[in-house]
């Protein structure tokens, strides 16, 4: 791709960007959110058309007007958001729109399943082709997408943050699949925020910043600090600064909490005032469900939750909010924010009565508060009237936080607080968590990012199949210890 430029109304998304991928090479594309990685890949995938520049495949200039054009040139795209239909089977997804047929209009089910099987075994995915997709884990669904790309005989596979929702073992599996593909001569463009993975798999790293090429690192030059430096364009010396946790006596006590998913595994644990309790575990261990149960959005019938020795009765999110228990949910676009509403309305939503008199909302009071919160959390947005949908992931997460910090948090639960967020915003969010803890808020942090768990938690509770298998103090915590508990030993 040479001299690619792309403008959107009001923004220059890409400005003469260059990218080359050799046969059988894994190129990692790194950059902060909004740096133009996804836009560049959408041009290569035929979803967007460039305003300037030219795309070459095998040295021939090509013009992609639609996704089908890119597919015809052997370019497969595994999207960040899952693009699968979970009401269909694995095989139907893989061959969607290209089903093998007989008698012209009927689907050849046998061939469909056997062809699919071949791709699944190549990826080491042990499921039957006729399994409905909704019975698969997220990681397996991700693999199905890759199978789909392979079935197109893709010579170039674009993977846009494929591991953002995968656990450690699943990620390892995916990386070995990538290595196999590379050995077969497939070129891979790999977008990820996880610098560890990039270091492990990439032959070369191309870093974008503000829609321009910021630099390229060859295999032997790849290291964490260099990538980060190129991404943010400055040194972050205080990057991931960790203050000492001043945890004291237990503050929030949770006893006999049952979730819908694991009704037979009541869990009990404490969170101390001023500490960050990390909750580790594999995807599906019931961590999010536990958080939702505490927050009152998952059924928990006989759970006893007490704050500061006072028992609180939580039947709904309203009750939790009234008691100062807040949840920053895993999926900000669905549960955290109403993305079509402006920042202002999102921030004031949980306590709208504070900004209203006689049932009528005072917009000026709302705006004032929203502006204060945006300044405090350094939300980058043109104004508080900007729709949340138009913000980057990190800024969206800050708005979710602003929602709760404008109230009075006592127990704050973060579910995957930094998923899909760029490094700059990440360190700001960690700093905020630290500051909150220091001011006496009890914090629970659910995370699938092992680095994050080990670095940020004062204590780590590990869950496996709905139960807490162990709580580690900071001193005893290691990747190995956490993993052992996470798999149930």
């Amino acid at each position, binding site marked *: 791709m040479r001299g690619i430029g792309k403008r959107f109304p009001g923004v220059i998304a890409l400005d003469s960007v260059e990218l080359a991928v050799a046969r059988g090479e894994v190129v990692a594309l790194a950059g902060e959110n909004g740096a133009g990685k996804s836009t560049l890949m959408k041009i290569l995938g035929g979803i967007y058309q460039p305003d300037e520049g030219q795309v070459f495949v095998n040295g021939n200039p090509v013009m992609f007007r639609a996704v089908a054009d890119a597919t015809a040139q052997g370019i497969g795209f595994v999207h960040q958001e899952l693009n699968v239909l979970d009401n269909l089977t694995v095989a139907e997804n893989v061959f969607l729109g290209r089903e093998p047929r007989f008698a012209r209009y009927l689907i050849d089910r046998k061939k469909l399943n056997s062809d699919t099987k071949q791709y699944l075994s190549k990826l080491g995915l042990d499921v039957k082709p006729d399994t409905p997709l909704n019975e698969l884990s997220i990681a397996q669904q991700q693999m199905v997408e890759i199978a789909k790309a392979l079935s197109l005989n893709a010579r170039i596979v674009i993977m846009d943050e494929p591991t953002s929702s995968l656990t450690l073992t699943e990620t390892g599996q995916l990386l070995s699949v990538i290595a196999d593909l590379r050995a077969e001569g497939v070129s891979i463009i790999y977008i990820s925020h996880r610098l560890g993975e990039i270091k492990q798999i990439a032959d070369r790293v191309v870093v974008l910043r503000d829609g321009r090429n910021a630099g390229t690192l060859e295999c032997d030059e790849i290291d964490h600090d260099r990538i980060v430096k190129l991404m943010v364009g400055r040194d972050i010396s205080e990057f991931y600064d960790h203050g000492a946790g001043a945890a004291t006596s237990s503050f929030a006590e949770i006893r006999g909490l049952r979730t819908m998913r694991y009704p037979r595994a009541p869990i009990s644990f404490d969170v101390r005032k001023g500490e960050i309790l990390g909750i580790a575990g594999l995807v599906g261990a019931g961590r999010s469900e536990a958080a939702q149960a505490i*927050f009152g*959005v998952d059924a928990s019938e006989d759970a006893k939750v007490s704050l500061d020795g006072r028992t609180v009765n939580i039947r*709904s*999110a*309203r009750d*939790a*909010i*009234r008691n100062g228990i807040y*949840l920053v*949910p895993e999926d900000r676009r*669905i*549960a*955290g*924010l*109403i*993305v*079509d*509403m402006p920042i202002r*309305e999102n921030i004031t*939503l*949980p306590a*709208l*009565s504070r900004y*209203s008199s006689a*049932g*009528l*909302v005072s917009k000026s009071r709302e705006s004032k508060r929203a502006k204060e919160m945006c300044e405090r959390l350094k939300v980058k947005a043109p104004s508080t009237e900007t729709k949340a949908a138009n913000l980057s992931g990190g800024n969206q997460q800050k708005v979710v936080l602003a*929602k709760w910090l404008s109230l009075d948090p006592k127990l704050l639960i973060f579910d995957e607080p930094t998923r899909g967020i760029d490094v700059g915003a990440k360190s700001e969010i960690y700093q905020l968590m630290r500051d909150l803890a220091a001011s006496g808020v009890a914090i629970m942090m659910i995370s699938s990012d092992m680095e994050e768990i080990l670095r940020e938690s004062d204590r780590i509770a590990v869950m496996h199949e709905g139960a807490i298998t162990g709580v580690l103090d900071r001193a005893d915590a290691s990747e190995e210890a956490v993993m052992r508990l996470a798999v149930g030993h």
Partner: protein
Amino acid sequence: MRKELGTFVLLVVLCIALSILNPSFLASANLQNLARLIGIYGIFSIGLGLVIITGGIDLSVGSVFALLGVLLSIFLVDWHLPAAVAVIAVVAISTGLGLINGFLITKIKIQAFIVTLCGLLFYRGLARFIANDETKGFGAAQGFETLQSMATGSLFGVPTPFIILVVISLAMWVVIHRSVYGRYLFAVGRNEVAARYSGINADLITASAYVLCGLLAGIAGVLLAFYTNSISPSSHGNFYELYGIAAAVLGGCSLRGGEGSIIGILIGTALLQVLQNLVNLLGIPSSLSERRRSRRQCSRQRTGPQAACLPRQGFRRRATIMIRQDVGRSGDEQAGCLRSSPLSTLASWCRT
């Protein structure tokens, strides 16, 4: 806001075109009748708009009109209940039906489309059963003339239903666009999960929209019953839910929920009524006899409502009833025209 503006421009253009093509559009009788219809349709369109803002739908409104009309006639004519009691009872029943809808949708978790589709079938059947499938009416409205004049009379030359609509719109504008409740309504319509995670009782908000819709349908139902004056349970109110939905959607309410405005719904209602009027005024066939018939029809529409206010002499009374039935029937013809008219199809295409 852009959506509303587009519909408004369309409305203005249509009015100008219509007044050039047929100056009788601007005749005060025609405008009065138009305003009266906008008043009645607008009231229940706002109710439907609320439901649509929550991402739901209410298909039962038309059948509820039939049921309410039949009950109102029975209360007033057969049982001789005081006018106020009858009206309050009918509006309460309509609100109650809205509550049932809301309950089934939010607590039993049946889709709004299914619940209200059942309502559409069931309430009309109920109306026909109660009325023994006979046409009900109010005759000369003896003993409740004041009530009738709410639907058929005017205040300072403005038809009362239009005045009622203005009052309701102002109140609903505050509720929807300025109150905490209104904000919650939009939040739930946009994203119910996030609203729930923000501590909003989403079920209560959704159900309340159906209750409000029932309340407004009750008010509109009373006015409509007196406007047509005769209620044939099998056809009274047929397709009215679709006019309400069309008005709300034309006015910028998204069927996916979370979008819409009172002003938009009003513009949408007016647009639909002007379109209906256009079909009437321009649909005059060329043959002389037909022209005479339609002119007669026009003049009937003109005298109809006012004549109803002074039903003193015997022949006049009979004539009034005859006219009312005629108006009712021509209303149905208009409806038929509206559904098939290429212009209305075009208009709805433009919106989608």
